[in-house]
């Protein structure tokens, strides 16, 4: 019996190694708390919190080389082919200005709450609203610490004292979609969405599984193709005409609640 076990040990070990990545697949996302009153990050089961309308525009406020990389990152997410597609917004919008009704990204010397970055190099702020008893994403803004030495893109290992803009914006756009860090959820997977990724600079299988979980369904089966944006092409993509109206409505609701909250505090 022992001899038989010894004979089987190596083949079984090899099979276990091959199966390990598949078994470990484990994206993470934000979901409502069990009582529905709040939200909680790093969940691996249950209904995720997603955008109310799976067509969202994003405004980039970087220099040309960096905008090109941001658009490239947007295209990578779009190419997964889920119904959730990013579009390029061209209106003048600055990060963190919630009054402009746009998701936006750009450099900043402070985070969206006017604080120092501390040890963070880039920060995504996500806003949510409970509509009809269900939590939805309503706004996402990304700011990059302007004081750091950013390179538009470099491949492979990270460098000391130099930040790769491309992999960071790719990661942050994943957060803007609703994904969290799989490693913070106890998952051991290869993913751009890991909080502590080094050499990964493109979307991995786990990232794609994650966005498919959040936005199930195939874009191509509906006769559409993934939105691929070229840097020279401006304008908001198809299906985005509704967004400013929805955003305005959300803004008005938020403004009312904010004023109410301020009154309560006074």
């Amino acid at each position, binding site marked *: 019996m022992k001899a038989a076990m010894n004979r089987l040990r190596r083949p079984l070990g090899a099979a276990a190694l091959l199966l390990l990545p598949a078994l470990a697949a484990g994206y993470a996302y934000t979901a409502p708390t069990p009582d529905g009153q709040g939200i909680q990050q790093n969940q691996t089961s249950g209904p995720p919190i997603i955008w109310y309308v799976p067509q969202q525009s994003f405004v980039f406020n970087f220099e040309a080389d960096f905008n090109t990389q941001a658009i490239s990152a947007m295209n990578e997410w779009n190419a997964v082919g889920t119904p959730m597609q990013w579009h390029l917004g061209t209106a003048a919008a600055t990060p963190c200005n919630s009054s402009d009704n746009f998701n936006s990204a750009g450099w900043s010397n*402070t985070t969206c709450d*006017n*604080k120092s970055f501390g040890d*963070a190099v880039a920060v995504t702020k996500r*806003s949510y609203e409970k509509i009809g008893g269900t939590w939805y994403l309503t706004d996402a803004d990304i700011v990059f610490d302007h004081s750091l030495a950013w390179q538009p893109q470099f491949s492979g290992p990270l460098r000391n004292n130099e930040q790769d803009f491309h992999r960071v914006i790719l990661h942050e756009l994943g957060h803007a979609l609703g994904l969290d860090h799989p490693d913070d959820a106890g998952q051991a997977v290869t993913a751009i969405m*890991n909080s502590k990724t*080094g050499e990964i600079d493109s979307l991995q299988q786990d990232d794609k599984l994650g966005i498919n979980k959040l936005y199930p369904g195939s874009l191509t089966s509906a006769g559409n193709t993934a939105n691929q944006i070229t840097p020279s092409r401006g304008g908001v993509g198809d299906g985005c005409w509704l967004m400013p109206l929805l955003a305005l409505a959300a803004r008005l609701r938020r403004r009312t609640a904010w004023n109410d909250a301020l009154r309560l505090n006074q």
Partner: protein
Amino acid sequence: MGPHCSTLFYINNRIRQEIFAVGLWPRKIRLSCFTMAAYLTGLLPCRSANRAMMVLALLFCTSAHGLTEVPRTFDELAQLSELVIVGTVKEIRSEFADNGPDQNIVSYVTFDDLQLVKGDSAAPEYVLQVPGGVVGRFAQDYPGLSVFRTGQRYVVFIRGNHHDFFPVVGVTQGVFRVLTDPQGQQVVVRDDMAGHAGQRRALSTVIQGAPTLDSFVQRIRAGLMPVAPAAE
């Protein structure tokens, strides 16, 4: 024991030291994780004792380099912090910050049952301001930031409270949770390694090899000691 296994034994010793130093793993260790898995599964020969060490090491296979946060060594956490506290979260209160049209939500986390490891504070409680939270039907979050829980005891390396975006050295790297092991000892684990409601790693896995709270505090204080000048 072949030469590769000897190398891994050295690496395992490094990992043991790093586990004691509370989980700031050298990047090269992560590169060895796949090789360790090969040894463990018998594809490569290795002693049983070393395999046992590798099981432990593999649990901690992760990179040292954060994507969106500046990586910090353990000594840096201690040296760069203005205040290091051990405290239990008594209350978390969220509200809209009155700072114009951005409508940011901030939360105030109140710690009590305080033990001060570094810094001066005579107050029985300490309030940490962190971004995000839930106010009525509105919520804001910042992916990746540590989320404090009421009733949980933490060790926190604080810097820039009310000034920095997230006033913890190394962002998530400076938040540790105090848990109780099966022997009733208080042990300390990195916040991103600990589990909440079964969503993360099992408690028994997380606390394996974790330093006790006392040794952790001693380690912090040792990191704050001035380095003796070299003998002439």
